[in-house]
């Protein structure tokens, strides 16, 4: 309001020694204009707002260099300039929230089968569950960090074997995998009724990390397989009962 004239004169004086001073006054002007602008500004607009005689090209270059290592960078988008927070700080610009999600029924069953029957292949899980396992189910389980691919079964197709992790034990409050209840305990807990065929058994689970005799180690590419397509060829129409 008051005395706009005065700073202007100062500004004019400053312009004279832009090259002599460590930091050109023009850089301050551009900084302020770009900072306050609601949209990226093109050089024409900037030039129109700046005192005459500012070498915009070199000023922009200088400013860009100054901000290159900062948390805010001077970027050029579609020929226009704007300040943007540094790309590598994207994580900082995000508010991370933990969202509790309940495991689906299919995932819970699959997880339980992996826990009791590990090391177990996808085909074996499907055999026990009697339905084919969707890729999404294993993906979710891998995402939980509760299961891991352990190795490859030494059978045709060399399917990946899955087992549980330490995170599994800690999430479910188990001291060891052998703390999972056996058949009698499941029965007495009322989770299974008495009418089970003879020979029905619940395996004694083991998450021993050492590979079994029928397992090969994973290959380098297998580890990012986590969320990759299943190694076995899909044989389609798999909803089987046995």
């Amino acid at each position: 309001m008051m005395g706009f004239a005065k700073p202007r004169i100062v500004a004019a004086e400053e312009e004279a020694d832009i090259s002599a001073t460590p930091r050109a006054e023009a850089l301050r002007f551009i900084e302020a204009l770009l900072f306050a602008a609601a949209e990226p500004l093109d050089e024409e607009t900037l030039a129109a707002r700046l005192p005459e005689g500012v070498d915009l090209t070199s000023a922009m270059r200088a400013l860009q260099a100054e901000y290159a290592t900062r948390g805010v960078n001077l970027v050029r988008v579609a020929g226009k300039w704007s300040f943007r927070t540094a790309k590598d700080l994207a994580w900082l610009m995000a508010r991370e929230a933990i969202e509790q999600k309940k495991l689906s029924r299919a995932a819970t069953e699959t997880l339980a089968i992996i826990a009791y029957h590990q090391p177990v292949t996808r085909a074996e899980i499907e055999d026990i569950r009697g339905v084919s396992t969707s890729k999404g189910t294993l993906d979710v389980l891998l995402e939980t960090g509760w299961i891991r691919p352990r190795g490859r079964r030494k059978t045709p197709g060399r399917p990946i074997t899955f087992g549980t992790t330490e995170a599994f034990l800690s999430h479910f409050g188990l001291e060891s995998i052998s703390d999972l209840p056996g058949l009698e305990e499941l029965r007495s807990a009322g989770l299974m009724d008495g009418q089970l065929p003879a020979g029905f058994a619940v395996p004694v689970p083991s998450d021993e990390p050492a590979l079994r005799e029928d397992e090969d180690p994973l290959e380098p590419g297998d580890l990012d397989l986590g969320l990759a397509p299943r190694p076995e060829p899909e044989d389609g129409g798999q909803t089987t009962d046995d």
Partner: protein
Amino acid sequence: MSEEQFAFDPEVTAERASDEPALIVDVEGFEGPLDLLLILARQQKVDLAKISILALANQYLAFIEAARQLRMELAADYLVMAAWLAYLKSRLLLPEAAEGPGPSAEDLAAQLAFRLRRLEAFRAAAEQLVTRPQLNREVFARGAPEPIRDIKHPEWTATLYDLLSAYAAQRQKHALARVRFAKRTVWSLAEARAAVERLIGTATEWSRLDEFLIAYVVEPAQRATVLASSFAATLELVREGHAEVHQQGAFTPIYLRKRAAKDDEAA
């Protein structure tokens, strides 16, 4: 005081240059009687602390008088102030009577002086405040703030109970599915009898019991139960006289045929 000229021009905003002898006022521009007093006080060109309240009162009353002569309409506030100042003036001019109950004339004058100083001080403060650089006028915040993205990390939950009940239900469902398949061949005596009755209905020659049954028994594991039930059923049929069996010796094949109506007893 008489040198002061008052002109009332509603069109002209109150402008008072220090070298301007005439006080040109727009009465509507006044911010009340205290404001008018303050403007008049400035005419005295002395520190407000040392102002002559008496002189000020006279100026104010003269102003009001002039306004009245011009038939200006003055708001009640101005007239109340005039009445109060006229009272104050009379108190200040008269020698102080015996100490009354209220404040002395000097107290009242001091109070007025204080109010004028205070108003002036707040005006100065207000002026300083509004000449500060203000947001979006002289200084600016970021024009294009970048929104904070919301990233939701799923935290999967499942209880051990979920896990165990899912496993148990799953295994049991599957196990029971197999048992039901087996039940078709684990014959009850009634089932076996019905089957044997159907079998011997077609066999009038001696036949091996197990040969009849083998057609039904698919899995070797079920052979025992089928044999046992059907043998028991056969004996029942024999006892009732519907069939005949014979066996040449222990562990030799058992032969069976439908009993002819007038045949005698079996061996």
